[in-house]
């Protein structure tokens, strides 16, 4: 991740290839520029292997409906955070503040009920929370686009401020009073034991997939991430693209936070921090699958399942609590290594 100019010429590392070292080589074009089927679906293979492995290891527990639904439910909120994160990563900028925005959303949403003695209508509280997230996205965008601050640093800064604000609002404790039952009913709604978050994740994935794959805007996001200057010179307002991307990730984080609070029925402080690495693991691992070298929705879904099933299976196999963070961190590193080793030409 580097910043070259005040305008902030930024790359997010793994999926972007290094342009250097390829200059001036002879134009022997081979199919090397197109990822092979094996490269594209290796991640899917890993997922299948994991499923078979855990089915053989824990035949009575792992391949049951309840366990699978549990995996999906546990992955859904992380997935919502990660699908929002696809926008800035695709546009070539980091957003580290998403964990903090999720924390704020949990606290703010429940605090709104508490402070109004439960009289605030649920949709209003959710709307206010989302609008605050939009505001944070705009602040991030302003710092990065207008002030030219490195996105990594800018969003660490805003993230920390946002966490501080949520501590101020919630006084650092869990908010659990005056949460209306309609809010928790919403959060605990389920169909065939599939929680609402899974359906919302599916909807957001569909939306993100449509935008990224089938609209000029999506292509402009990818182009901005690939070369901000070449894209700007093509007459595309890259500053606006990056601004919208930051708003997307903040809103995704806020939705994740609201769903978390609604399922729990209370607003504990500081839960978002634990989700940050998970979202990055899923996004980067996803960028090595199906469309290698590109943050893509299909790859993200496979990556979420790899992480969810991997952690679940290892826990069933008897590994304790520390497995979650370890597995997520390892998945992130493996993803970056794979992305780097992808044949360059």
């Amino acid at each position, binding site marked *: 991740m580097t910043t070259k100019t005040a305008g902030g010429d930024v790359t997010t590392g793994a*999926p*972007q*290839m290094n*342009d250097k070292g*390829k*200059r*001036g*080589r*002879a*134009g*022997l*074009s*081979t*199919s*090397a*520029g*197109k990822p092979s089927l094996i490269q594209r679906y290796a991640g899917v293979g890993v997922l299948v292997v994991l499923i078979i492995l855990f089915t053989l290891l824990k035949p009575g527990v792992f391949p049951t409906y309840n366990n699978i639904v549990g995996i999906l439910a546990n992955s859904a909120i992380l997935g919502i955070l990660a699908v929002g994160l696809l926008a800035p990563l695709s546009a070539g900028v980091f957003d580290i503040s998403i964990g903090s925005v999720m924390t704020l959303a949990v606290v703010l949403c429940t605090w709104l009920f508490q402070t109004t003695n439960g009289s605030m209508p649920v949709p209003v509280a959710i709307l206010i929370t989302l609008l605050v997230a939009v505001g944070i996205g705009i602040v991030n965008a302003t710092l990065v686009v207008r002030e030219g601050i490195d996105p990594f640093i800018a969003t660490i800064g805003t993230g920390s401020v946002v966490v501080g604000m949520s501590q101020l609002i919630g006084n650092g404790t869990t908010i659990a009073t005056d949460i209306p039952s309609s809010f928790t009913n919403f959060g605990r709604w389920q169909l065939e034991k599939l929680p609402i978050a899974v359906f919302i994740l599916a909807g957001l994935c569909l939306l993100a997939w*449509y935008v990224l*794959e*089938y*609209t*000029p805007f999506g*292509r*402009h996001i*990818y*182009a901005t991430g*690939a*070369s901000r*200057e*070449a*894209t*700007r*010179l*093509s*007459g*595309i*307002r890259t500053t606006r693209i990056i601004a919208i991307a930051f708003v997307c990730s903040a809103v995704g984080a806020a939705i994740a936070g609201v769903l978390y609070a609604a399922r729990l029925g209370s607003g504990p402080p500081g839960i978002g921090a634990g989700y940050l690495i998970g979202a990055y693991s899923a996004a980067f691992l996803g960028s090595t699958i199906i469309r290698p*070298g*590109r943050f893509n929705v299909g790859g993200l879904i496979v990556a979420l399942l790899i992480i969810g099933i991997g952690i679940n299976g290892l826990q069933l196999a008897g590994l304790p609590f520390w497995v979650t963070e370890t597995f997520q961190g390892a998945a992130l590193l493996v993803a970056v290594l794979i992305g780097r080793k992808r044949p*360059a*030409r």
Partner: protein
Amino acid sequence: MTDEQGLVANRVSKSFYGNRVLHDLDLTIPGGTVHALLGHNGSGKSTFIKILAGFYMPDKGSGPVTVGSHELEFGNPDSTYEAGITFVHQSLGLVPTLSVLENLRLGKSWTTNFMKKISWGKERRLARESLERFGLGTHPDTMVGELSTVEQTEVAIVRALSEGDHIRILVLDEPTAALTDHEVKKLFSTLERVKERGVGVLYVTHRLEEIRQIADEVTVLSDGRTVGHGPVDDFPQERLVRLIAGTTDSPTVTAPRPDSSPVAAAVGTGAPLLKVKGLRVGELVDGEFEGRAGEIVGAVGLLGSGILDLARVLTGRLKLEAGSVELDGEPVDPFKFARMTNRGLGAVVGQRPDRVAMSLTVQENLTLEVLPDFMRHGILNRRAETRSAVEAIERFNIRCAGPAVEMATLSGGNQQKSAIAKVLQAEPKVLVLEEPCHGVDASGREEIGAMLRTAAAEGTLVLVIDSDLDEVVGLCNRVLVFRDGKVVGQFQEEELSRSQLLDASYGSNN
């Protein structure tokens, strides 16, 4: 320090892929003298410097190159250092956010006390001494970024010379390109001190009028051959320009152009599509010209002439201090670039990574500017998009393994063709290109030339901003020559020649 300790280079040649770019260069620089090395872009000057630096291996049979009794081992930068050759490049290589003292000590060991603490007092005194040795009063604690360009150049020279007492030869690569006349004088007084210390100077420059003040001898290169060599007084300015230009125009210049007579009638008629007036920023002082539909206009000039900043302005990379730009009759602010493209401007910049998006596919690059055309019922019609990309690949002969491969897999020339094709897809009214053929091989150049001629024939105004005169002579209907930030000459197709452009670029009446 005697004359023997100067640089003696014998028969230095260099070829790239069988193409000889430097022929048997002989050069002698006795200690305490300044030797000016002149020649246009591609004449072999920088090739020679890079051989001296140990960056290029010269051809077999070259050499020996000696400094005093020390013979240079080719291709080995350490040997260059040990021989006592030091370099100051145009970019200077200073760190603007560090102090003069810190820059002087960069990459060297510090004087420390017994606690390994840097002895700042001592360092400061030493730095001041070495600055004063060259007549510089700059305070060692000043941030380099706060110094003027000439002071920075001087600091870079002092740094190069304090690499060791064994330094005998200083190579200055276009040190004055960014300096004003007054600053050049100041720099020369520093160089006088360098000469007094017995150091020989190899002085590479484009500015002919100044060499008489500083140089003792000159060598002129043209297409890699030494076309002139001797004491500076034997070379009046007109002779130098003639030598630099070469007696005949090079063959690539007079390449046959396709039959363009039906087009020529329409060239330069109608209202101007691009009209700039009083452009001022950076090296541009008063840029003024206009261009009409169907024209291919060249803008040329030497380093420091303002053409680089003209390109930056017209591609939205540099905000104008003064002046106006009119696109198709309407005033525009080029810094708001997306609006310029909406009004019909297309731009291809010189820097390779900025021309195309390397990690996108060829198709995605080619359709980037016209994506909305492929929307059907709110969905991007990929099939129509691919069809259009394949069409462009065939039409412009872009060699690639298909529309779905990454742009990074293409050769530089094909990337450049893709970059131009991408812009042409949007059918721009005005197309601005910066060094469109830089680093492209001969056949690629021809193809790019054909692309631009076709675009012009279809009514586009093509503006080629280029420091390579050969390119524009073969291509343009009209060439504007920039010097000192202004258009100082204008040549129509019929009267275009390389030597005339050079004359105007250097300012022949000097």
